[in-house]
C-alpha cells in the first residue's frame, strides 16, 4: 500500500522530511473536524468546559462522538450508556498501544505521554513507516499535532455551537449521523465487517422503541462479540487493524496534499 503511494516522493525528499509532511497533513485534516465535535457536543447538552475536557482527557474521536451521541439522544438518564459506549469504542486503543509499545521505547514519562496520544491517526502513520526511527517520528508528530489541533478546534466548535441556537435547524443532528458513518466507512472492507455493521444497525434500530436510549447501541455490540468469537464469515488469514489503519491514513494524506 505504502510503496505504491510513496515511490514518487521518496526519491527526491529525505525520509524524515517526508514523515514530517505526512504527519502534519494527517494532523491538519483530523483537527479540522474537531470543529464538528465541539459544535455537536454543545448541541447534545454539554457545556464548553465539559466538551474541552473530553477532547483533552479522553482524546479519542470515536469515543467522544459516541458519548455525546448517546447523551444527546437519551439525556441524563442515558449517561451510563454514554460511558459504556465511549469505553467500548476505546477498546481498540489497547491494540494500538500494544503495537506502539516496542517502538516507543523505555522511560515512564515518555510512555505515559505516548499512551495519551495513541489514536487511530498516530498509530496509522507510525506503522506505515519503513524504519523504527521514522515510525517514532511519525507517531509523535502526528499524535502531538492532532492533540494540539483537535483541542483548539474543539474549543472553537464549542464556542460556535453555543451561539448557533437550535441544533436541528442547522442540521447538526444529521451531521452527527454522518460523522458516525464517516468513522465507520473505512472499516467496511471485509465481508465480515460489512455483515456485522448491517446487523448491528438493524438490531439497534429495532430495539430503539423497546429499550431506554443508549441501550440499543450496547446490545448491538453483542453482534460483534458473537460473530468475532466464532469467526463467522471470516477469512482465515487476518490482517485487520493494520490494513484498515493504513488505508485510512493514506486516504487522509491524499486529500490534504
Amino acid at each position, binding site marked *: 500500500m505504502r510503496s505504491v503511494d510513496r515511490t514518487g516522493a521518496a526519491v527526491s525528499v529525505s525520509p524524515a522530511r517526508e514523515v514530517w509532511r505526512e504527519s502534519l497533513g494527517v494532523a491538519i485534516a483530523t483537527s479540522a473536524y474537531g470543529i464538528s465535535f465541539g459544535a455537536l457536543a454543545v448541541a447534545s447538552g454539554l457545556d464548553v468546559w465539559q466538551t474541552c475536557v473530553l477532547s483533552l482527557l479522553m482524546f479519542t474521536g470515536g469515543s467522544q462522538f459516541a458519548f455525546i451521541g448517546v447523551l444527546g439522544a437519551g439525556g441524563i438518564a442515558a449517561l451510563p450508556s454514554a460511558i459504556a459506549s465511549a469505553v467500548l469504542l476505546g477498546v481498540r486503543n489497547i491494540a*494500538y498501544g500494544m503495537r506502539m509499545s516496542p517502538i516507543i521505547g523505555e522511560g515512564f514519562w515518555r510512555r505515559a505521554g505516548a*499512551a495519551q496520544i495513541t489514536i487511530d491517526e498516530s498509530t496509522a502513520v507510525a506503522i506505515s513507516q519503513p524504519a523504527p526511527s521514522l515510525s517514532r517520528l511519525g507517531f509523535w508528530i502526528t499524535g502531538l499535532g492532532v492533540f494540539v489541533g483537535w483541542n483548539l478546534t474543539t474549543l472553537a466548535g464549542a464556542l460556535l455551537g453555543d451561539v448557533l441556537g437550535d441544533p436541528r435547524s442547522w442540521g447538526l443532528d444529521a*451531521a452527527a449521523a454522518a460523522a458516525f458513518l464517516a468513522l465507520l466507512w473505512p472499516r467496511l472492507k471485509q465481508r465480515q465487517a460489512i455483515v456485522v455493521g448491517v446487523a448491528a444497525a438493524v438490531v439497534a*434500530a429495532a430495539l430503539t422503541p423497546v429499550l431506554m436510549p443508549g441501550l440499543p447501541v450496547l446490545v448491538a455490540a453483542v453482534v460483534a462479540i458473537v460473530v468475532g468469537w466464532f469467526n463467522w464469515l471470516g477469512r482465515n488469514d487476518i490482517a485487520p487493524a493494520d490494513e484498515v489503519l493504513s488505508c485510512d491514513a493514506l486516504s487522509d494524506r491524499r486529500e490534504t496534499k
Partner: protein
Amino acid sequence: MRCVERPERDEVSVWSAVLLAACICAALKAFGYLIPSRLLEAERPARISDLLTVALLAALVAVQSLGAGQAILVDARVPAVLVAAGLLWMRQSFLVVVVAAAAVAAVLRLVGWAV
C-alpha cells in the same frame, strides 16, 4: 426547592460521567503499553476488538439517523445520511461529508420538505 436543586445535581452527574468515561478511555490506552505485545498475535481478541468498533459505529449511525428518544422517526436526517454515504463513496473527506449532511438537513427543513 427541588426545582432549584435538580439542575445542580444533573450538572454533577454530567461532570462525573465526563470524567469517568475520559479516565477509563485514557486508562485503556495506557493498558496497551503494559501488556506484552505477543498477545497481539492472538487472533480472537484482535478480531473482536475490530468488529466491536464496526458494530458500535454502525449502531450509532442507525440510532442517530432514525431515533427520536424511544421512537423511530424518518425525517430530514435520512436524505442527509444518504448524501453523506454518496460522498464517502466518492472518497470525500470527513469534513466535507459532515458539512454536506448538515446542509442537506438544514435546507430540507428550511424549505419545509422534511421535518
